[in-house]
């Protein structure tokens, strides 16, 4: 994609992000890989990323729905959070190596004039110590519900309705 106007197509993007060697921070990439392995509709692209970087902006601008998956720093491990996101340029915009999803949406809108409907699906991590793609028990127990939540969002988008924004297991 060059600097020309973005052509948006009816597609969705799922981005699971986090460090695979920092305990529950591996949640995002692990879920993205699981979704890819189990299969997603042809109109869905799935990315597993260590961090959110600016080069994702053109891809996000080209879809109608983006779902971020991440482990939250605060909250109750295992509780599923599904929150809609709005673009939000903030002070953190000056530290651009790592982007918050809302900031990435702000980049997308500022650069390409549009930002898709966006959600963050997450649960709080219990531990972020060094380990290799290993989740703590409460976070591991939440994986199936998180997957269902992402698929529910995709189904809802497919049927032009979006499900509620918070569920618990």
């Amino acid at each position, binding site marked *: *994609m060059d600097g020309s106007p973005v052509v948006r197509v009816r597609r969705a993007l799922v981005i699971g992000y986090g460090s*695979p060697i920092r305990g529950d921070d591996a949640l995002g990439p692990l879920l993205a890989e699981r979704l890819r392995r189990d299969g997603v509709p042809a109109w869905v692209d799935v990315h597993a990323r*260590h961090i959110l*970087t600016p*080069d994702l902006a053109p891809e996000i601008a080209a879809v109608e729905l983006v779902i971020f998956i991440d482990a939250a720093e605060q909250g109750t491990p295992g509780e599923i959070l599904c929150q809609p996101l709005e673009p939000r*340029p903030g002070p953190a915009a000056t*530290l651009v190596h790592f982007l918050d999803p809302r900031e990435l949406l702000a980049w997308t809108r500022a650069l390409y004039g549009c930002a898709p409907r966006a959600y963050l699906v997450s649960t709080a991590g219990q531990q972020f110590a060094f380990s290799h793609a290993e989740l703590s028990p409460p976070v591991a127990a939440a994986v199936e519900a998180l997957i269902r939540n992402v698929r529910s969002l995709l189904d809802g988008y497919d049927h032009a309705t979006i499900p509620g924004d918070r569920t618990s297991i």
Partner: protein
Amino acid sequence: MSRTITIEPVTRIEGHARITLQLDDAGRVADAKFHLTQFRGFEKFCEGRPYREMPALTARTCGICPVSHLLASNKACDDLLSVAIPPTGEKLRRIMNLAQLVQSHALSFFHLSSPDLLLGWDADPVSRNIFGVMQSHPELARRGIRLRQIGQQIIETLGGKKIHPTWVVPGGVNEPLTAFKRDQMLTLLPEALEIAKETYAFYKTLVPRFQQEASHFGDLSTLFLSLVTPDGDLEHYDGVLRVTDAQGRILEDKVPPSDYQRLIGEAVEDFTYMKFPYYKPHGYPRGMYRVGPLARLNNAEACGTPFADVALAEFRMLQESGPISSSFHYHYARLVEIIFAIEMMKRLLKDPQILDHRVRARARSNQNEGIGVAEAPRGTLIHHYQIDDDGLMTWMNLIIATGHNNLAMNASIQQVAAAYVDGTKLAEGMLNRVEAVIRCYDPCLSCASHAFGQMPLSIELRDAAGRLVATQRRD
């Protein structure tokens, strides 16, 4: 009454840092220190792990330049195997390294430094950021994204994923290149070169405005260290070490990377977790040297590609004679290197051997010590491993590009602060210039401390008794 100003966090850099400015009774800067305040201990926790895990593990040092660690680590492992990797394997690794350089330099120039360069150091900090650039120069911002995206796409095409590819392995790479993938990458390069050349041409028109900054943003008399080709040209993957002095005289040449310890000592200070490498023959701290794009261009006889050589000649005209001494011109050097990287990737991809199926030498460890050196975007990256006979790590030393520049960064802060900071009437633009001189080096502090996470920066102001008078902090 003397005071100390502390800048924390330093923004638009990778890592977590604090700058302390010590003022004298007249409010002038008497001393300046750059503190790295996080510690990670990568070298320690790798001990006892199998050496074959090191490429994947050390690449996790950083989410920004994992390819650099991947390559230096695999080169150290090549050394442990005592193998020469097949020529095509080496060329493929080179392409990945150059793609990494393009995406990293693009991030540094377009998105970290452009707010200062385009909007001014004294612009309102509320808008002096990438969103301000998107408003004032939207096409430039989009082009920066596109250039970074092209670099990432090439890394992904070669390695299978953008951030932590596992395609580079000890002995070479684990899969030959297909014609389809080669053509995919070649298709991207004309657009990348056009963006790079146009940005370079645009930046040249800005440079005359920055005479004052160039005189005070780390205009230092230092040595320069980098890899060069055996003929002395620009090199990013292999080659030999060269050290030149502030007058351009070659002090060390054709030094095998395995002899790095003869050249480099490492000092520690109690105010920071980042080590202070220095040129051993000159001692500490007199042996201050710089690495990275500025050093590489100062050390190279030529780039060896058409447009980059023209740009290199123009780069050398920034100064009447001698090596380019101001760290401000790291920005210029990055643009020259982006052009070079794109041209060189095209040359390598068009090499008739590039589709050869022999891309990996297989062996078990054949010696207990291995050293791998490559040029990361920010400078020379050294991985040094020792293993036992079972292949388990017994010792590791990493010298990171940002670490090499530590002495120079501290000297640069002092210089810029002395020129711009008036302790009797602090202004945000003064402090931003102090931060901006750090951004010239594009430091990656996660790598340098092997620390984790986002690292903000603070500025503190202290009086003669050491009492905190004021703090400015940005997350």
